[in-house]
């Protein structure tokens, strides 16, 4: 079969990214211009600033993606872009650039869901086995998504308040640690011990939903108490205890869901899947089961365009094209 080449663009948050993916599984190039250092001093992503930087980077990044893949626009079969969810002003840059390229070269245009992208990042490493469960954990998402076939998504659990990554950022802030909190807390937790018994929120029996706001409050209260008593605060121990609580709940709920739905493969996706404790704990819990565990390499966990190209491949084969009136959809749902 002829393998299609897709040029993919992703600008949903603070990375300007473009990639060329062949046949949904082969990476020809993957260019990411991160704005991390720009937003760091503000303690979080500033949407207007993100949009301003995307527009300065967009053609450079696309140019580099084509060059590194050693393909011309004529050889590209379709243009894919993240249409949502994300920051609307940021999404608009990618969407309008993609529409322009599709128009200028008369190529099919494909709008991709950002989370579908995170899941399909794994297909650049390993073929999918259905039914498949994905744990999607990032700054904006904590979801368990069941897939029975390509392009078919069912949310069986999601967070009722904070996303896991959001809880990390808030705890980091309470500990006077820099943004983003995930990598810093992961590193500190590595050096500390679980000395505090922070709550684990299991919610009602049988539920695969998550809740992290109670945990975040418990951690903040603990820090407050220690400060009032003038007791030394071991950031490493608090980080280790907090992380243990998050990982316990994520892993156990994922395991239960995987058993209940009889899945053949588990995928961990999204920025938080870079977390070492989560990776280790998932591997341990699923050891001895016949469920294949896939966690993408770090460069495919964080936002990138290769994952958008991988997800777009399925839509390309199903002729699911967008028209030139495609818009950014900040609240786009994954379920159809």
């Amino acid at each position, binding site marked *: 079969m002829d393998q299609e080449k897709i040029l993919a663009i992703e600008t949903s948050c603070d990375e300007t990214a473009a990639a060329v993916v062949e046949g949904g599984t082969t990476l020809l190039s993957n260019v990411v211009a991160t704005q991390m250092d720009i937003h760091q*001093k*503000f303690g979080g992503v*500033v949407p*207007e*600033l993100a*949009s*301003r930087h995307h*527009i*300065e980077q*967009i*053609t*450079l990044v*696309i*140019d580099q993606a084509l060059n590194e893949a050693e393909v011309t*626009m004529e050889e590209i079969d379709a243009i894919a872009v993240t249409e949502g969810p994300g920051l609307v*002003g940021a999404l*608009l*840059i990618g*969407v*309008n*650039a993609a*529409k*322009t*390229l599709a*128009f*200028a*070269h*008369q190529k099919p245009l494909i709008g991709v869901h950002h989370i579908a992208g995170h899941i399909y990042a794994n297909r650049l490493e390993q073929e999918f086995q259905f039914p498949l469960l994905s744990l999607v954990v990032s700054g904006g998402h904590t979801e368990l998504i069941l897939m029975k076939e390509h392009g078919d998504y069912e949310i069986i659990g999601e967070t009722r308040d904070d996303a896991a990554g959001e809880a990390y950022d808030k705890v980091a802030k309470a500990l006077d640690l820099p943004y983003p909190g995930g990598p810093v807390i992961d590193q500190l937790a590595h050096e500390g011990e679980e000395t505090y018994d922070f709550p684990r929120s299991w919610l009602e029996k049988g539920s695969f939903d998550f809740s992290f706001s109670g945990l975040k409050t418990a951690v903040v209260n603990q820090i407050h108490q220690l400060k009032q008593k003038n007791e030394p605060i071991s950031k490493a121990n608090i980080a280790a205890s907090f992380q243990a609580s998050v990982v316990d709940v994520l892993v156990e709920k994922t395991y239960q869901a995987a058993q209940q739905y009889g899945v053949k493969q588990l995928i961990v996706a999204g920025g938080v899947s870079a977390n070492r404790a989560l990776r280790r704990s998932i591997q341990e819990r699923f050891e001895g089961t016949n469920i294949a565990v896939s966690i993408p390499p770090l460069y495919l966990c964080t936002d990138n365009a290769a994952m958008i190209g991988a997800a777009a491949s399925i839509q390309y084969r199903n002729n699911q094209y967008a*028209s*030139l*009136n*495609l*818009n*950014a959809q900040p609240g786009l749902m994954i379920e159809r």
Partner: protein
Amino acid sequence: MNILAIDTSNRPMSVALYHNETPLIEHTLNSKRNHSVQLMPAIDYIMKEVNIQPKDLSKIIVANGPGSYTGLRIGVTTAKTLAWTLNIPLVTVSSLELVAANLIYSSGLICSFFDARRGNVFTGLYRAQEGRLTEELPDQNIAMEEWLDRLNDFGEPITMVSPTEHTFSDMVYEILGKRAKWVTGHLSFPQAGQLVLLGKDREPVDIHTTSPQYHRLVEAEVKWLEKNAQNK
């Protein structure tokens, strides 16, 4: 030479195709709908109407601000991506100059402005003379009251023009008195064809690094700068 001109700086959206200095088609709308949805289909439409393919384009001219941040980014992203991928020159023109250009065949001072909320405007002062515009005061973001005091110093009649809704009429008459003249209706709206006449012979910009002229820092940056100035 086929030139495509684009303006999405404010609520109106205007696109035009020229062959050298001859207009082929111009399409302007003023609706509350989204430029992101409408711009690309509008370009597609005008090009099909006059049977010009994307590869037949030889230059893109875009109004690059000031104006609505989102609107500007839609127009500029589209313009720079198109110019880059077709490997043709990109020229930028001030969005305020574009509106002032409606009065290019008049004579005297023209103040074009866009409402920027909380008593502020994006504005510039131009002089029309013998079919040409020159800049008298550069485009800026300023409190309208302060701006009008500066205009008053010129002691000349000034034609005021704005495509945005605003509440500055009383203030203008108070400060400039009878020297203020207003242009409303058709001539207060941007028409992309004027971009061609203004920009066709201008120096092209560097496509990759081009971004809108916002004339205002991001709020978070302003606060951060203030905070860090205090801490010093």
